[in-house]
């Protein structure tokens, strides 16, 4: 396979995953969130029922415990675009994938060992 062809096919695969992800991805809490909710009594350790009120309270408790109340408004919070539904999520993940591609290309280009 040509190098160019390999790169194009790989980017295409990444974009297919990006478009599919919002439809396929599980909305369940991830491993860290699950551990957090179970330790703070909002979810059984090996069960799936999440107590939303207890989860909200846990988030306040943890800020009180660490004192880190830094908050930051992301442009596309949780891989979504405010005001758009599923299409916004697809767009967000696609934009993120392309941003990662371009940013890493640029930084890698600048920091790579010159060929000569």
């Amino acid at each position, binding site marked *: 396979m040509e190098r160019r062809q390999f790169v194009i096919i790989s980017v295409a695969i990444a974009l297919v995953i990006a478009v599919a992800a919002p439809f396929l991805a599980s909305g369940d809490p991830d491993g860290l969130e699950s*551990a957090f909710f179970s330790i703070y009594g909002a979810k059984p350790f090996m069960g799936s029922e999440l107590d939303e009120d207890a989860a909200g309270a846990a988030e306040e408790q943890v800020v009180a415990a660490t004192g880190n109340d830094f908050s930051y408004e992301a442009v596309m919070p949780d891989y979504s675009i405010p005001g758009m539904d599923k299409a916004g999520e697809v767009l967000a993940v696609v934009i993120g994938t392309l941003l990662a591609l371009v940013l890493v290309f640029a930084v890698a280009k600048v920091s790579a060992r010159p060929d000569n």
Partner: protein
Amino acid sequence: MHIPDAFIPMGQALIYWVIALVFIVLALRWARRSMGEEKVPLVAVLAAGIFAIQALNIPIPWGTSGHMVGAALAAIVLGSPFAGVFVLTLVLLVQGIIFGDGGITVMGANIINMGVIGGFIGYYGYAGIKGVIGNAYAAAFIAGWASLFVSSLLCAVELAIAGTFPLVPALTGLGLYHAVIGLIEGGITAGALYLIASARPDILEHPAGVSA
């Protein structure tokens, strides 16, 4: 495993940032010495793939989900643990700043857990296990699994130091969930390595070394 800002006190988060910066500098030095210009498109493509696959949370039991991290794959393909640091640092930067996934003040901790631990356990685990059992894909699976599992244990220790989680429940909780999520990491690491080795064996820094 992206730690949010609230989970670690600001002072400790700053210490993790300083440690992460040391590894970022080392990763840039690795790039200058060992990452040839011809590798640039490959590194960028790996980052795009890792970003996309990280958005794909796969359900595991117990009302929980998990996704691949990808540092082990980057380290194995590019032949250095610092490749994992290089790619994950930039992916985490995009995730944190644009999407609010993983905190800003705690980004150093996330870079250490996923980039540094992921890259080092992934790379040296792969090299060591491959040396013993001889099969590159089995080695990639085990190293991918271990990279995620060990990352989660370090994350548990950091959160115990932070006073967010008690140590033992943190280790058992994060450890158990990530022992399962690690199967996703190991599977995709081995699968992607197989696809790359089949399509372009020459771009692997060290050949997978399994005759087809």
